[in-house]
């Protein structure tokens, strides 16, 4: 395979470009995704190729264009909703939960819902409380969504391609702190399947499931600990729905210890679900309490020192692993 370095954003854009070239029924809606190419350069260059019908700038009507795309997806086209910041689609939750997630079921599979909803998440850069949410637990809780949280360029492209080939609604969440991070990406076409976690580091001392931007910080923490002969296994779920529980159980079977690191809110979060799965199905493997490290349970403050206090740091991840091992 011929490889080249791409940023997360470029890799995801390449996936979109390839699929738009292949499938004329794909169109993108969003604010500034036309000529401007997207607030996060998600569509740069595509407007010149495909024009306004397929790269559709919208007024500020998140509910409106998501509801519109629902009808479009029911009638033979494949909308890609580029919502810029996930915070904005909260105005469309009624359409998402009551319509998008339920149409296939209510029609007994006679209607499909091939819609990809993509945009940025995460606390970084003093983006404050209306531009820093993640909000994925609500979409994991509700049946009918695929929830994808890529953590590197390779996965971003492969998962986005999978999203655009499927017939289910996909919530594709891109952490702002990862958008410019680079990895090697093959020239050749490839897909990353949903529901397949990545074991990004092997180890035997304990298992850490890290979500989104926490993968990098966890790997940094593991480097430090490796020096002390501590071998941590790190799992990146990649998709939160479906969640690859078997891979997590397998790892805990080996290590006997589990920590879940997640920037987002703890109560009823993804860490709670993972802990509940493991204590139900991996109970006998557990040598210690399952621990969770989450961002502080508060709206996101603007001021850098406050923001820094909210997001789990590499130091905190390291300490959390030490605490787990001390149990």
């Amino acid at each position, binding site marked *: 395979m011929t490889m080249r370095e791409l940023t997360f954003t470029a890799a995801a854009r390449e996936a979109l470009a390839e699929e738009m070239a292949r499938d004329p*029924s794909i*169109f993108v809606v969003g604010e500034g995704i036309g000529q401007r190419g997207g607030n996060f350069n998600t569509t740069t260059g595509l407007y010149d190729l495909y024009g306004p*019908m*397929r790269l*559709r700038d*919208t*007024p500020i*009507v998140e*509910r*409106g*264009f*998501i*509801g*519109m*795309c*629902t*009808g*479009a*997806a*029911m*009638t*033979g*086209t494949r*909308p890609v909703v580029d919502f810029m910041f996930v915070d904005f689609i909260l105005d469309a939750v*009624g*359409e998402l939960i*009551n*319509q998008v997630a339920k*149409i*296939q*079921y*209510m*029609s*007994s*599979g*006679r*209607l*499909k*819902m091939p819609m990809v909803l993509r945009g940025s998440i995460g606390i970084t850069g003093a983006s404050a409380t209306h531009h820093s949410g993640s909000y994925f637990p609500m979409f994991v809780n509700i*049946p*009918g969504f*695929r929830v994808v949280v890529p953590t590197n360029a390779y996965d971003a492209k492969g998962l986005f391609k*999978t999203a655009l*080939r*499927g*017939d*289910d609604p996909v919530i594709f969440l891109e952490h702002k702190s990862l958008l410019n991070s680079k990895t090697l990406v093959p020239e050749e076409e490839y897909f990353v*399947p*949903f529901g397949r976690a990545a074991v990004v580091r092997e180890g035997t001392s304990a298992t850490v499931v890290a979500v989104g931007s926490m993968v990098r910080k966890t790997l940094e923490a593991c480097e430090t600990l490796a020096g002390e002969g501590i071998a941590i296994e790190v799992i990146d779920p990649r998709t939160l729905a479906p969640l690859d529980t078997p891979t997590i159980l397998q790892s805990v079977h080996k290590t006997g210890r589990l920590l879940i690191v997640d920037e987002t809110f703890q109560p009823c979060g993804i860490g709670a679900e993972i802990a509940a799965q493991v204590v139900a199905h991996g109970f006998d493997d557990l040598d210690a309490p399952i621990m969770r490290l989450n961002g502080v349970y508060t709206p996101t403050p603007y001021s850098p020192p406050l923001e820094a206090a909210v997001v789990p740091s590499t130091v905190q991840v390291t300490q959390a692993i030490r605490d787990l091992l001390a149990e």
Partner: protein
Amino acid sequence: MITPTLTTAQYLALYRQMVEIRRTEEQLAKAHQAGLIPGACHTYVGQEAIATGVCAHLTHEDAVFSTHRGHGHALANGVTPREVMAELFGRVTGCSRGRGGSMHLFAPEVGMMGTSGIVGPCILQAAGAGYSARLLGNGTVGVAFFGDGASSNGAFHEGLNLAAIWDLPVIFVCENNLYATEVPFSYATRNTDMAERARTYGMNAYTVDGNDVLAVYAAAGEGIRRARAGEGPTFLDCKTYRTRAHSEGMPSLGTYRTQEELDAWKARDPITTYRTRLLTEEVAFEADFALIDTEVQALVDEGFDFAKSSAYPDPVTVAEHIFSDRQ
């Protein structure tokens, strides 16, 4: 002479359709009293001319989106009385396989893309069908049926605007029956001229006598012609009245309607007035109506027996089709 000029067969087809809706719902009302309908039942009695006049112009490739009062729309689109009754009885032979009931009628095979228990979304989804039609260039139209109550909702504003600015082939049919449950339209807005409001979006709009099937047929025909010709959306404000309760089991007058008002509208019943009119204009004769009435009654009776004797869905299928098979 009455306009538009149709063949006798066409005139009678409109009559037949209205009678089919009426008889089916009278049967449903009885069935509700008899306890055959486990859930809600919102009848369309008094409003039959609207679905009939609009849907007479549609093919099964066109996409219809409706609301909680959708029996008439399903029937006028070619869903059979047996499928509608079976659905309300919760049987596997229902148009939604028993999963939906009165407020969730799905039959995409005939262009019935679904009714909804939530007020508003159908407006946006019809715009989406219009978007697909433009992108695919297949000459189809999207149609939304909704009540006066939906016109205050943000979905109305966002949906009409999107259809207008993108010249989408969509027909917005407001069934303005003066009340949203018990809330009068004149309380919900200071401007009861909905056609005027629609025009402020830069959209073609007509005020229509919703109890006159020929008036609806003519206005809808022009709107659909324009839509198929690429001339953008049309709004129909159809003035009508529901002569039964908001929902079966509720009082038909309640605290908000007077007997006089109800009687005045019953005197303008869309079926009897149309029948009289065809008779006086000598377009058709008693024998024609008698024949249709008998045929429709037989169809409804047969449908009732079919529905009543149909099986319930198998509980093992309860979680099927939440997602598409395609991965």
